[in-house]
């Protein structure tokens, strides 16, 4: 089953003005249901513009966008219903918190779609638990929490809407290593438990490859690369060429290769590098 499909999708900002610029250029791609997809690219590569098409915040200048195999810009589709199917979490999502208590903030969406009190409560509790929001925070002001905690409350608010597709724009930006791992691990767990489709946009290649099964690299509005995570770094040279970082451990693997030692093109975690090196040494010792 296909969760998302774009057909020759293009988007221009400022049409008819001197500032006209093509932000997304002829992108055709399909995303399978249940996948965890990472999207990486420079500032200005078009990734934010692309994801704003996924729940109809932007309407393509050219091309089509299909969610759950329906073209969302046809008369038969109510665009509001698409926003319930696709949850979009913006950068610095904690800035969207506004309620007096954590509970009420998470409950805001479910309340607006007219769910019963019991259902609202059940959803808030489920979402809170999924994002590691402690029960005793629920009665507190969200503004008394730390940055990472606030971020998880904001995510819980979107998850409480129980979308089938969750799009996250830089969910870990600005957090310290502990806060970052906590947020991303919770998202990964939620993906495993719920089976929904998740798109993770990030500047950090290390974060993307740690969590995603497939990776999209965007460059200048176009689709530069769309590969399984294990295959991404066989294109390491091209990725570096367009000015993106590859993980330090991948750089190490490339340096070793240049010295005549091949530990593989699929090195992006310390664990794998360690295993391969020990394997080589183990062979040698025999």
């Amino acid at each position, binding site marked *: 089953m296909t969760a998302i499909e774009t057909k020759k999708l293009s988007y221009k900002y400022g049409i008819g003005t001197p500032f006209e610029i093509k932000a997304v250029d002829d992108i055709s791609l399909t995303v399978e249901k249940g996948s965890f997809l990472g999207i990486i690219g*420079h*500032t200005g590569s078009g990734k934010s513009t692309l994801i704003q098409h996924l729940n109809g915040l932007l309407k393509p200048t050219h091309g089509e966008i299909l969610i759950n195999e329906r073209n969302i810009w046809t008369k038969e589709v109510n665009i509001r219903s698409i926003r319930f199917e696709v949850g979009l979490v913006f950068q610095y999502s904690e800035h969207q918190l506004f309620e007096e208590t954590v509970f009420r903030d998470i409950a805001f969406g479910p309340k607006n779609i007219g769910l019963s009190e019991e259902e609202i409560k059940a959803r808030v509790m489920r979402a809170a638990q999924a994002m590691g929001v402690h029960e005793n925070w629920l009665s507190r002001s969200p503004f008394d929490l*730390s*940055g*990472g905690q606030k971020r998880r409350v904001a995510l819980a608010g979107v998850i409480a809407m129980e979308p089938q597709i969750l799009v996250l724009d830089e969910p870990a*930006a*600005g*957090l*310290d*290593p*502990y*806060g970052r791992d906590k947020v991303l691990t919770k998202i990964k767990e939620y993906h495993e438990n719920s089976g929904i489709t998740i798109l993770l946009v990030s*500047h950090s290649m*290390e974060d993307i490859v740690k969590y995603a099964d497939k990776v999209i690299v965007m460059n200048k509005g176009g689709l530069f690369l769309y590969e399984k995570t294990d295959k991404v770094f066989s294109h390491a040279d091209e990725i570096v060429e367009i*000015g*993106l*970082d590859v*993980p*330090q*451990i991948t*750089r*190490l693997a490339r*340096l*070793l290769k240049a*010295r*005549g*030692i091949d530990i593989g093109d699929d090195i992006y975690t*310390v664990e794998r*590098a*360690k295993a391969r*090196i*020990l394997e*080589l*040494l183990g*062979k*040698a*010792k*025999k």
Partner: protein
Amino acid sequence: MEIIKTENLYFDYEIYDDKGNVVEKNPALHGVNLTVQKGEFLAVLGHNGSGKSTLAKHFNGILLPSRGKVFVNNIDVSDDSRIYEIRQTVGMVFQNPDNQIVAAIVEEDVAFALENLGVPPDEIRERIDEAMKLVDIYKYHKHAPHRLSGGQKQRVAIAGVIAMRPMCIVLDEPTAMLDPKGRKEVMGTIKMLNEKGITIVLITHYMEEAAQARRVVVMDKGAIIMDGTPKEIFSEVEKLKAVGLDVPQVTELAYELRKAGVKLPANILNEDECAKELAVILKEGRDLLQ
């Protein structure tokens, strides 16, 4: 010569009730003793809430000690009458460039502090041109700051500080909101300023940035728990992980391989060193096999 010195520094964030009485005290610093020498490049590492930003805010009198002393260039920061002198000695750059840019034109923003100090116009011109050229934003001097990239905006903020000709610049997570390109631009600028003799205190939680400093202190729960060169600090992988910090990937790899019995040095900081050391070991191994 020391430029910043803290003596047994304590700081509590106080919460007041409606009548102005203290109802709650949240201690953020517990007896910090730190000396920064002139010309140093010091990185302060710590997770969120470790007290590193609170400490930084004492370095030019934004916060004043609850107990203990802070001296800037031998001036006590608690001496209210000398606060301008202190702020001209130590300049601050914060995390979010959008929060520190006030003017509608780049060069006006860089000139803002000098205008407030009543510096003569000719001298302002000279000092801001010099500052903008130094951080490589002169070509945008007539641009609107909001049309610049994050890295460029952060360099505008740094230029504004440099125009004050401070002896020391404290940067509080200046790259946290930037993309990798912006991060590189700002780190390059910071290193260049240090080479010109300006003391740098860099507050960060990026290990690869801290590895570029000449000295690193690690904070946890409001106290300094480690102090040394990057090599010394990053060889203590377990201690860093215990306080919620990362180590660079190659440092972790070297640590893991050492645990597994591979004879690698403990203080590997970058991929070049690591590749060199590993290549020797792996090639030896291969030669043995043949």
